[in-house]
């Protein structure tokens, strides 16, 4: 039974980061209407920022969170201004290709400048763990989860309690209607895309602490984020949270209980998405 609860706990902790990455992507897809295939690369930038600051300046990765968020927000806003903005009315395919191109560009820029090695960040709390009765939790995991929850709480407070947040949700629901009632849609897009990238970067900092930083670290998280937002429904900003928990926990369950589970967890994960999608389509929701 302890094993079961330990598994649940691990899954829940893992879902914190998933939710961070996915809520960022949900903003890009839901509000701006752009399927951002470069989302993982913004995560990668965050991870490298954390690594660089910690290695060269001795800054604790968690202190570099605000800096990573702010600078990648700026990068995202700039990206929107010079590229995304010009394909908003283009066919979906062109938008996808543009963000693919951006992803390839960023990933290989990192590869060119930093090489393909994985870089780890060392912190004082790396090996620490906290035990709750029979259960034990790694310190970094718990800290990362705490930060993820705090940041998500902040995000949803903005989305549901401020004018900007209401504007974002309005645009996500109906962009023409929002325009008609006087919302500056272009500005909302700019901010939403910047925030989306900033969230990915924040997740990247946490990933650097938990795993490592490398040019390709973003891909896995981006794929899972896609899965999550699809499960939640495109444009659904709140559904992302429970979808992340469902996926994190089910992944952990498979890892623990299926023999050779490490290898199968990805397949079950994607099978779940596949099933959701098919179920949705046959129920008529598209």
């Amino acid at each position, binding site marked *: 039974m302890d094993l079961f609860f330990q598994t649940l706990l691990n899954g829940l902790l893992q879902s914190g980061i998933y939710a961070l990455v996915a809520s960022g992507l949900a903003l890009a*897809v839901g509000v701006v209407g752009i*399927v951002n295939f470069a989302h993982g690369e913004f995560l990668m930038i965050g991870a490298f920022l954390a690594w660089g600051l910690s290695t060269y300046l001795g800054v604790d990765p968690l202190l570099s969170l605000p800096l990573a968020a702010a600078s990648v927000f700026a990068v995202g806003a700039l990206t929107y201004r010079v*590229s995304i903005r*010009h*394909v908003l009315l*283009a066919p*979906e*395919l*062109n938008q*996808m*290709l*543009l963000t*693919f*191109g*951006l*992803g*390839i*560009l*960023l*990933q*290989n*820029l*990192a*590869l*060119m*400048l930093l*090489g*393909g090695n994985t870089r780890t960040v060392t912190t004082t709390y790396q090996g620490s763990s906290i035990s709750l009765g029979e259960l034990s939790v790694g310190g970094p995991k718990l800290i990362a989860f705490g930060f993820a929850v705090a940041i998500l709480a902040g995000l949803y407070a903005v989305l549901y309690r401020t004018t900007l947040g209401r504007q974002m949700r309005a645009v996500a629901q109906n962009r023409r209607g929002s325009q008609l009632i006087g919302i500056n849609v272009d500005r909302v897009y700019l901010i939403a895309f910047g925030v989306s990238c900033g969230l990915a970067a924040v997740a990247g900092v946490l990933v650097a602490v938990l795993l490592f930083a490398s*040019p390709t670290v973003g*891909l896995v998280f981006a*794929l899972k984020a*896609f*899965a999550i937002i*699809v499960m939640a429904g*495109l444009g659904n900003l709140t559904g992302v949270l429970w979808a992340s928990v469902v996926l994190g926990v089910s992944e952990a369950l498979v890892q623990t209980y299926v023999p*050779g589970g490490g*290898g*199968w967890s*990805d*397949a079950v994960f*994607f*099978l779940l*998405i*596949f099933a959701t*999608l*098919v179920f*949705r*389509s*046959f129920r008529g929701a*598209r």
Partner: protein
Amino acid sequence: MSRVIEATRTVSRRPDFTGRAFVPLALFFLLALAFPFLPLGARAEYLLQIAFFTVVAGVLALSWDILARSGQVSLAHAAFYGLGAYGFALLSKAVPWFLAMPLAALIAGLVSLILGAVTMRLSGMYFAIATLAFTEVVRTVIQNLPESVAGGANGLLVPALLGGNARAQYFLALAVLLLTALVSLAVRFTRLHHAFAAIRQGEETARVLGVSIVRYKLLAFFISSFLAALGGVLFAGKTFFINPLETFSLANSIAPLTTSIFGGLYTTLGPILGATVLRVAEEILHNYIKNGYLVVYGLVLMLSILWLPRGLMGLFRKGKRGGEL
């Protein structure tokens, strides 16, 4: 009534069917056929290898494009490419290569019918994600099969195609590309073209017009993945070695997509041209920049989308409506 349909068919057909449109395509194949006989100098072997992989890239891009014409923007191409490669590797233990090749493609085609049936009612982004998920599932299944069956994560050795004769392999690849191009032309100049285009432009309308959506969507899937699997066979037979991570990588799904868009969507020449330009550019870049040579590739893609949204084919057909080849 049937006379009306007949009439509209002839009307809509005639402007497409000009011999002149075939000239660039025929020219390409003549050049490609002559390529191994050109005085290539000391680097002939290397150049022939690039040409081989360019042709395979062309097969993948064009087969992807055929599926895209029916409005299904798939990210599952790597799955069928990989199924072709694995099918060939496993089948060629039992049967000669010329049987293993079509059989592997047939298996991939049949699997694609399952995917097609399941994703039938999905559209746009949902469809793309479902196909992406499908690829991951196929990869994980193959990776986790017992090692004695499919080699697991370590991969499989594959018998070399045609005894490893580079020139013969190149001509075989070219034959597959020619087959793909002929299929593409067949789709372009029959009723299929109108059916696919109608489905792409509006499924509801197409249904009202009497187009059997199920049949045509599945047909597109079958044709496309059959050809993609042939590409996978070529790849496996050239490199002697396949592993799940590389064969089913996302890059193999994205490359045909970018190539088609860069070259010109819904055309026959476009994807082939795109594959040639992009593969050669990639190779040149690779020689100049070792690490991260794809930087420029990504930049080119972004710039071409921003300034060349209709692809390379758009350059030649300014203002001309339709009639793409």
